[in-house]
């Protein structure tokens, strides 16, 4: 029933993703699309490392690329990542949003337009409020929304802001998130 998972995270996100992403097995049926605030510079080393941990193929998004299952996509540093209604990616160099580029809100908002109710949105640890408005939009459009429980987050501000604004139905400890996503992906 779901067609994609979008994840947003910043401070502590690297550690959190290391717990979640390697649990997705080879046949995981949904593309996973991630904005991680990582600074302006190339994240080649980070991607290589993540690839070595994961069974799915981890890659940085390219402009106009078609979204496919079997992949974990990361937004390139210093570009906003958007999803088109034909399920391809586009990139922009627009102004920072919530002091961030890539911005989680911008990904989530465009994903909500493209996937409407067939989307799962997840907000993990982070030290600002990017992603809260986007998560609300996913929920308003009928998608499923999940946050990491603030008390299990290295930086609770981001899931806390998402909790306040989006009121997601599901709050999970970090170690329970991968299992839940796997369960939802096959439901």
């Amino acid at each position: 029933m779901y067609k994609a998972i979008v994840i947003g995270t910043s401070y502590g996100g690297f550690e959190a993703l290391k717990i979640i992403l390697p649990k997705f097995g080879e046949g995981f049926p949904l593309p996973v699309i991630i904005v991680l605030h990582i600074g302006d510079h190339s994240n080649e080393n980070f991607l290589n490392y993540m690839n070595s941990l994961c069974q799915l193929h981890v890659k940085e998004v390219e402009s106009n690329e078609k979204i496919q299952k079997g992949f974990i996509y990361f937004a390139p540093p210093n570009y906003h990542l958007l999803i088109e209604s034909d399920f391809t990616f586009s990139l922009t160099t627009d102004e920072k949003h919530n002091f961030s580029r890539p911005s989680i809100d911008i990904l989530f908002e465009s994903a909500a337009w493209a996937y409407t109710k067939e989307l799962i949105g997840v907000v993990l640890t982070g030290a600002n409020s990017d992603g809260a408005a986007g998560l609300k939009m996913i929920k308003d459009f009928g998608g499923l929304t999940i946050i990491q429980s603030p008390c299990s987050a290295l930086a609770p501000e981001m899931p806390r802001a998402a909790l306040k604004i989006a009121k997601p139905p599901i709050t999970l400890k970090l170690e329970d998130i991968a299992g839940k996503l796997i369960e939802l992906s096959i439901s």
Partner: protein
Amino acid sequence: MKPANDEGNINMVQGTYNESNADLLNIEIQLLLEAIFLRYGYDFRNYSKAHIKRRILHRLGISMLSSVTQLQDRILRERAFFIDFLDDLSINVTEMFRDPEFYKSLRETIIPKLRTYAYFKIWHAGCSTGEEVFSLSILLKEEGLLDRCQVYATDFNRNVLEIAREGVYQKSDIEQYEKNYQLSGGSKKLSDYYKSRYGSVIFDKELSNKIVFADHNLVTDNVFADVNLILCRNVLIYFEKELQDKVIGLFYDSLVPSGILCLGTKESIKFSRHGNLFEIVDEKQRIYKKKIM
């Protein structure tokens, strides 16, 4: 140039557009882009739509209009309103020596090739407010080539060209630019090239003497003849695939044999139908050379 205000967006989305009529919004946007093309000749019909949608919803929010159809009505009837809207659709975020590694590669791999010409032409397509054109001028001056070239810097947005012609930028951004300049392999200090005045910096006129700023639209206008180097960075990302192909073809036709094309670091000719007409000079920095056929 305008801060994005998504609270406006989201409130408006809840008012008129939601998950049940997402298609309606897409239809109205398609009609609006068609209307703009027919009325004003600006062709956004093959731009990536997610970005356009975001900008349109933002404009709806701040204009107190409740649908794209209402927005279209005003755009068709009020030229001044359209000009404002044009700013929304134009890409105006740039910085000096953006992606310093690119400028480093330009200096090390392309400048020696340009040096072999007695005289050469450069086209900076989609120059926006000019920060990257001034960066290029500084680089050419340091390499002793500024007197041997003509630079055409173009954009479809006349407002940004006005800013580019002035060469006046905010002082608050200079620290970052200085850092970029040093990382790009600059041999002096950026402050050698500008004078500070109040909150602004003014770049030396010597740098812009060789630059012709001109109104040119990549989508609807024609080739530039016999250019040796084209820079078009972070413009193609805003286009759908077919339009990207068309514009890369336009660049091919504008370049002299062995002419150089520089794209943004997330843009590639790899998947273009003209990809085989270029060879790679620097894959990472997206620098290509027109093959001699």
